[in-house]
């Protein structure tokens, strides 16, 4: 059996396979870079945005003149119907309630708004008495579990509880911020976390993250989630949440040796100043306006704590990627740890492939607990267990919906999603890009070299991505090897003009001339199930076809191909195309 031809064949296959895996690995890496650059560029926009008056009016605290007791009385008057099958809370909370919440959420139930308001009220009352920096000790407990960003991914929280046990006096937990936004179950997560906070006040701890901030929530999905789940009481819940978030502690220190904050530090970080400021005055990241210098400086201390990222080279520079906080080098870490006699900094804020990462010679740990954050299969989640020896032990996991999970499929899925986002970004900057391309193409041939193309794209988008490597996925090459620079807008252009044409066709056919709603939605790209219902009702009334609500719901659910609760504009059009076809067949 061991003849030389078998040997040669085996080596050949192995050689080929390793090359194939390497190419997958490269694709995975640049997919990662794409997700990260777009994510941070988006956050940066948000930080630099100043608040439009419209939105501030909605959540203006001055609107509400009731005092705390009056508010509580108001919540208690909210009726909970007998038909409500979800968890019921009574205060003070006990482990019975946390169990009810967990099992209720596993069955996709929603907590009644009355209980939400009462829970938030009690949480705010409790948090008001917390200091800015919580001091913990491992003397009385064996181990404390530290978790990072969850971002609304309830499955990850449930997986952590499954692997590591529920929070209790014997099993203390610290959650290091960013409980909300992006994922669809942010509300459920904070309900669970706050409930445990009230049941085990000495052994459940929460640090504030940069997403515990209603300006971030407006953009990254939490506000939308609340308004969708709580149509009547949504605004009130959001207002109360604003207060609760502002009272969350901003740092935790374990055994006077381990500092835990959501983002990081800067060379200005002063723990004494941070301990003394009125943290709740820092409501959100929009800190412009009339403030004293002192107040501004203390706000900046908090921003540094919640937004900074470590970097590998020495020094401390403004975090241009995020638009707030700093990049802090190993020297900054060393100086701070030495100044306060600490030995370790644990932080979160950045997604890591393996759920955690060490840097600064092991003195900084990043812990991230939302697996599959960018896309199915993109990364694992992890948590840390810390005992009296203060040696961190890492535990990883990944929520998987598919049973066979090979590298190829996970890379392909993630890559498709990343490239789609990137193409959309290119399209959004079309005018500037074409101007930059034409600058290199004096003879108007429609082609430029790969080098010129790469520099032009980077000069407009500022995403610092490996454009040469990505080139083949974004643009066509001419026969001479040069880039056909208009081809990167081609597919998108066609897509959009088809959308435009179809929308008009449908509307004209149905006799509706104002397709405002459709074009609005196409700008955003998504229609909520509610908007779909309203649109359909409009159409059906023009068609003189009575359609009952249930039928509309069924239709909505069947159109929602990816089952995420909203209908992609493409899905919407597909549905209409099918209906239109059937219509004309019958006629």
């Amino acid at each position, binding site marked *: 059996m061991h003849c030389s031809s*078998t040997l040669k064949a085996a080596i050949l296959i192995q050689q*080929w396979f390793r090359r194939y895996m390497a190419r997958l690995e490269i694709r995975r890496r640049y997919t990662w870079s794409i997700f990260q650059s777009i994510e941070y560029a988006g956050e940066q926009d948000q930080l630099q945005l100043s608040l439009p008056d419209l939105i501030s009016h909605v959540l203006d605290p001055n609107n509400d003149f009731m005092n705390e007791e009056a508010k509580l009385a108001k919540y208690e008057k909210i009726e909970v119907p007998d038909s409500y099958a979800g968890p019921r809370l009574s205060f003070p909370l006990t482990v019975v309630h946390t169990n009810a919440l967990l099992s209720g959420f596993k069955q996709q139930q929603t907590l009644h708004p009355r209980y939400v308001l009462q829970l938030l009220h009690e949480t705010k009352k409790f948090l008001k008495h917390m200091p800015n920096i919580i001091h913990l000790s491992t003397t009385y407990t064996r181990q404390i579990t530290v978790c990072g960003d969850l971002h609304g991914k309830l499955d990850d929280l449930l997986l952590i509880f499954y692997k590591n046990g529920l929070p209790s006096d014997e099993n203390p937990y610290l959650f290091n911020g960013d409980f909300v936004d992006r994922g669809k179950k942010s509300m459920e997560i904070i309900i669970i976390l706050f409930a445990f906070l009230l049941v085990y006040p000495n052994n459940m701890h929460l640090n504030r993250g940069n997403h515990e901030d209603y300006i971030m929530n407006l953009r990254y999905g939490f506000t939308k989630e609340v308004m969708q789940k709580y149509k009547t009481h949504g605004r009130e819940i959001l207002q109360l949440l604003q207060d609760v978030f502002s009272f969350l502690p901003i740092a935790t220190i374990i055994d006077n040796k381990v500092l835990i904050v959501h983002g990081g530090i800067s060379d200005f970080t002063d723990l004494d100043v941070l301990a003394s400021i009125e943290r709740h005055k820092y409501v959100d990241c929009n800190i412009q306006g009339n403030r004293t210098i002192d107040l501004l400086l203390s706000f900046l201390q908090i921003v540094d704590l919640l937004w900074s990222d470590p970097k*590998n080279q020495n020094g401390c520079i403004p975090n241009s990627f995020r638009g707030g906080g700093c990049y802090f080098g190993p020297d900054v870490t060393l100086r701070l740890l030495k100044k306060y006699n600490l030995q370790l900094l644990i932080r979160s804020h950045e997604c890591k492939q393996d759920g955690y990462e060490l840097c600064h010679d092991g003195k900084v740990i990043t812990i991230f607990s939302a697996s599959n954050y960018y896309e199915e299969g993109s990364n694992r989640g992890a948590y840390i267990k810390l005992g009296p020896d203060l040696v961190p032990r890492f535990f990883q996991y990944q929520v998987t919906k598919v049973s066979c999970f090979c590298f190829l499929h996970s890379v392909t899925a993630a890559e498709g999603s990343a490239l789609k986002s990137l193409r959309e970004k290119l399209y959004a900057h079309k005018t500037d890009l074409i101007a930059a391309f034409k600058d290199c193409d004096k003879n108007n041939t429609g082609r430029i070299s790969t080098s010129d193309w790469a520099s032009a794209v980077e000069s407009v988008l500022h995403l610092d991505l490996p454009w040469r490597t990505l080139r083949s996925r974004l643009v066509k090459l001419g026969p001479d090897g040069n880039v056909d620079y208009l081809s990167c807008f081609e597919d998108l252009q066609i897509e959009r003009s088809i959308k435009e044409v179809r929308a008009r066709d449908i509307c004209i056919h149905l006799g509706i001339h104002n397709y405002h709603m459709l074009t609005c939605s196409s700008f955003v790209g998504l229609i909520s199930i509610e908007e779909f219902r309203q649109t359909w009702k409009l159409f059906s009334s023009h068609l003189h076809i009575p359609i009952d609500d249930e039928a509309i719901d069924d239709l909505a659910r069947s159109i929602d191909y990816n089952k995420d609760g909203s209908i992609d504009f493409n899905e919407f059009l597909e549905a209409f195309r099918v209906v239109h076809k059937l219509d004309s067949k019958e006629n």
Partner: protein
Amino acid sequence: MAEEREIAEAMISEIHKKITDAFDVFDHEYNKTVDVREIGTIIRSLGCCPSEGELHDILAEIEDEEPTGYINFDRFLPTMTKVLMERRYRPIPEDVLLQAFEVLDQEKKGYLMPEQLTKFMSEEGEPFTQEEMEEMLSAAVDPDKNVILYKDYVTMMAVEAP
């Protein structure tokens, strides 16, 4: 003559930029060094298909006398440029790959049993790690028949590659 040299220079310049791009993806510290364990991936991503033995030879050329675990860009660039200019370690064409599978399929059944492939890949040549073996099996094994239809597998893999 001058024109030919210009073309050659332009080609070398393009090759340099390609190598830099690939290198930068793994240069996490932004200091023009990469972990030596990632060199294989970088070289393969540039279109080359060396065996493990050939990879060792390349590393011997570019590593420092006292290996630090890191590879400097200044040493990587000239070696890699030569490799690309000389078109060494070219990728294996689909038909050659298919022939290799056929050699392993001694009974000429048209398919391989997972145990057979595992034995060959883990014991012969430059053996796979367990991770590599699992990865290959997860994509190659037909879930219904529990065999590796290697012709289909090779065709599928050829399509996936951009």
